[in-house]
């Protein structure tokens, strides 16, 4: 059994700390159970299940630290592990950025674990794949998809008296449907903490409609277009993403050191400056029922509701405990997931209000081009459509883009209702002057 409850975890952690002779000691215990199924060419290709439990000890003498881990839990093995961590600490160089372990903290209760997800069976996974394949067969399409589910626990205890425990679960599904002649492709992705919210048929239908509608795409000239970016085009759990790139860059130290788009000419940072359209507000909240996450960060700091960008103004940046102390600023960990405020428009509403534009299902192979301006490149994929006079007129060939999310969030036309993607809540967005630099013949 890889998942330990709070009391079981606490008992092991207490025992390990009782063996410690170090100045400071911190122990992390975690476990996971889960499974997956993958299908392609309308046939299941692989599936598997996994469980694992692991334990890591960090011992410290002064500013020297050593870590050791084991997956055996008898007393002798645990004692040996503590000694190994202590030996390693004695040999380690002093860490000039040493900061003592946290004392007891208060954490917000979160509801991130669902029995429905923890109880997923191999039969359920096969049913999801089978239904999706059946739907593809019925439309003479080719399905490729993946379902993966987890149930996890994490616990931490240290010699300063801190104890933290969390359980979470998740299920992620994605499917690509392709037409038999290879000229059309459609995609859908869904992720939830509670699998009872997941509907494989609905997701497969979306991918099927996109595939059938995207056949025999026409080429149009690259250039600056108004785009409607669906949530999967803004955030991804399989690749880099434009919104992910922006949120990953909200690091205090990089900005302070002058190596981030948030660094200011002449020194200092752009914290407090209005850098985006005033409709852009992004926050995090571990208690959000749609994207619940741990009440504590990896280093034991409490996670709380934090506003990162408010009405276009950069309000907070995350940092390490060392940097917060060094700069004498508020200590803020990186959150588990981001929530972006949206609007009331549906994607259909956005299409109706567009004279000439492009609807984008998904972006792919997104890579940084210039960290100074947060410029990224990548391509559209699996359903790209031309909009004229408020209607989808025809599918178009895929484009390569070169764009910065900083520029993009200043060219905002409209926001839709946020949807969960990759553990975040992101609204579809309508953006003007999005830069496509070349065409791709790829389908």
């Amino acid at each position: 059994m890889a998942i330990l409850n709070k009391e079981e975890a606490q008992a092991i952690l207490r025992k390990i700390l009782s063996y410690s002779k170090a100045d400071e000691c911190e122990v992390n215990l975690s476990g996971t159970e889960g499974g997956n199924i993958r299908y392609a060419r309308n046939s299941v290709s692989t599936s598997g299940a996994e469980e694992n439990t692991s334990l890591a000890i960090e011992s410290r003498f002064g500013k020297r630290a050593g870590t050791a881990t084991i997956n055996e839990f008898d007393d002798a093995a645990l004692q040996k592990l503590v000694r190994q961590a202590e030996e390693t600490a004695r040999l380690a160089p002093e860490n000039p950025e040493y900061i003592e372990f946290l004392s007891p903290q208060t954490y917000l209760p979160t509801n991130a674990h669902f029995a429905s997800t923890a109880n997923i069976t191999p039969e359920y996974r096969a049913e999801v794949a089978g239904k999706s394949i059946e739907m593809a067969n019925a439309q003479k399409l080719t399905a490729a998809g993946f379902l993966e589910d987890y149930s996890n626990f994490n616990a931490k205890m240290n010699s300063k008296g801190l104890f933290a425990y969390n359980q979470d679960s998740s299920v992620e599904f994605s499917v690509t449907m392709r037409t038999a002649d290879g000229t059309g492709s459609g995609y859908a992705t869904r992720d939830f903490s509670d699998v009872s919210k997941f509907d494989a048929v609905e997701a497969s239908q979306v991918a099927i409609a996109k595939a059938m509608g995207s056949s025999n795409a026409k080429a149009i000239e690259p250039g600056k277009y108004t785009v409607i970016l669906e949530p999967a085009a803004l955030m991804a759990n399989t690749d880099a993403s434009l919104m992910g790139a922006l949120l990953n860059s909200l690091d205090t130290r990089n900005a302070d050191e002058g190596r981030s788009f948030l660094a200011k000419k002449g020194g200092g940072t752009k914290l407090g400056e209005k850098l985006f359209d005033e409709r852009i507000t992004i926050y995090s909240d571990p208690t959000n029922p749609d994207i619940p996450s741990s009440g504590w960060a990896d280093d034991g700091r409490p996670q709380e509701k934090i506003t990162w960008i408010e009405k276009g103004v950069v309000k907070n940046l995350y940092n390490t405990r060392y940097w917060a102390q060094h700069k004498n600023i508020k200590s803020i960990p990186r959150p588990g997931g981001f929530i972006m405020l949206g609007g009331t428009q549906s994607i259909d509403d956005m299409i109706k209000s567009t004279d000439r534009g492009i609807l984008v299902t998904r972006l792919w192979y997104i890579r940084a081009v210039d960290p100074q301006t947060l410029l990224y490149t990548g391509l559209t994929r699996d359903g790209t459509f031309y909009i004229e006079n408020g209607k989808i007129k025809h599918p178009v060939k895929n484009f390569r883009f070169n764009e910065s999310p900083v520029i993009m969030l200043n060219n905002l036309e409209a926001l839709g209702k946020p949807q969960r993607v990759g553990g975040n809540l992101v609204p579809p967005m309508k953006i003007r002057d999005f830069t496509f630099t070349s065409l791709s013949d790829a389908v």
Partner: protein
Amino acid sequence: MKRRNFIQLTSAGMGGLLLGSVPVFGHAVHPDAYLETVDVALKKRLADAALNAAKAKGATYADVRIGRYLQQYLFTREKQVQNIVNAESYGVGIRVLANGTWGFAATSNVTEAGIAKAAAQAVAIAQANAKFQKEPVQLAPVKGTGEVTWRTPIVKNAFAVPVAEKADLLLAANAKAMENGTSFVNSNLFQINEQKYFASTDGSYIDQDVHRIWPTFTVTAVDKTTGKFRTREALSSPMGMGYEYLSNPAPKIAGPAGTGLQGYYKYYDILEDAAAAAKQAKAKISAKSVVPGKYDLVLDPNHLGLTIHESVGHATELDRVLGYEANYAGTSFATLDKWQSKNFKYGSKLVNIFADKTQPGSLGYVEYDDEGVKTKRWDLIKEGLLVNYQATRDQAHIIHEKESHGCCYADNWSSVQFQRMANVSLAPGKTKLSVDDMIKNVEKGIYISGRGSFSIDQQRYNFQFGGTVFHEIKNGKIVGMLEDVAYQANTQEFWNSCAAICDESDYRLFGSFFDGKGQPAQISAVSHGSSTTRFNGVNVINTARKI
């Protein structure tokens, strides 16, 4: 990453956050344990238990991989060690064919009972999935090897070198960068040892010990008055070598006159490269911004390797061509009909690209792949024409071949093995040509070194690549550095614009250490060899923006 039991990067480990995409899996392990190995006789006994259990449950074929995977990663910045990650993962993966369908199960319970349970689970999964199988799996034959062993021919095991010595070397490189005028430098050393035991019902018992290493850094120069910053990455390549890559001097290949660059292959001088990087990062801040247009590109092997990887390596993976990666990494433009035509002009006549898992020093060098197939070299593109793909045992019949290419790999015992890229390389030119001689004939061009930014579409056609260092070529001479350079092309046009390739004396390996593919995602490491190569009339864009 969740399934990998990601090691918590504790207090000193904030470097891990900066390098968030670095995969670390397994349990942390004491450094003393790195030089231990598992007794081969024990592994054979356990492997037989797995194969017998699978057959008893109804498998018509079974293979078992008993794997001990070791990683040690060092992370430093400026004057301090940020983190040292020691990880070990040990367990068994069992793959079976039952009812004509694959099944796979893995366990960390490396006992006869644990293995028998996993074997039964693998058969049960195969039988459950058989109802969705359209055609039974066809395996290309493999002759059993009996008991054989193989080891990456390393001189010095990197895991035997004290951690303090390795950390000191990285800190010395950081000091070199800072002495030469930059404020920020992050350096890392990645070391991998895969102790892999493979056995199958074909009668193979293969014990392999695989080593890989990658020292690398990023130097950042900041001009506070203008707020401008530029980075320059290391020009090392990850290699299938031991610590001798860092400690055993050998001749270098000088870069083109006027660039100050060095080509590294069997030896990497991290101190020299860090000093050069610092100077070049500073120079990039005031370098001329490129004027967009058509340029003749002269591409160093340290850059061209990635172009080969993305536009040829992935495009010729047969599982992608067939659609198995359609939901994730994508398919391929190099479809079967193009190969069947025997006349698909992938590149100019100069372009000869081969796959080879037997190149010494390369990341993909092994004697047997992860389904017991002896590795070899074969042609993918011959005189510009697409002639073959990269295939595994269950794909060989699709391209009318009688044996697998030996392209099967799993990144861990707990991962199912599947088709992964072999080392894919561009053959050097047949006539003598130095880089300086190649540049002499370029009127308007750019010399590009280092990987930089890279992106290609899901069928491996339209791409955009950047680079680390750019030098302008005017009338046959390097005239200065450029910035904001990226080139766009499609794979076929690009390779057809190949106009000259330097000879074998310039041939070097580039490497990709964490190449991702598959669901659940797996990593693999491959090398790509080439000599400096010229491509005419490529579209270059300017990537500078204002925010």
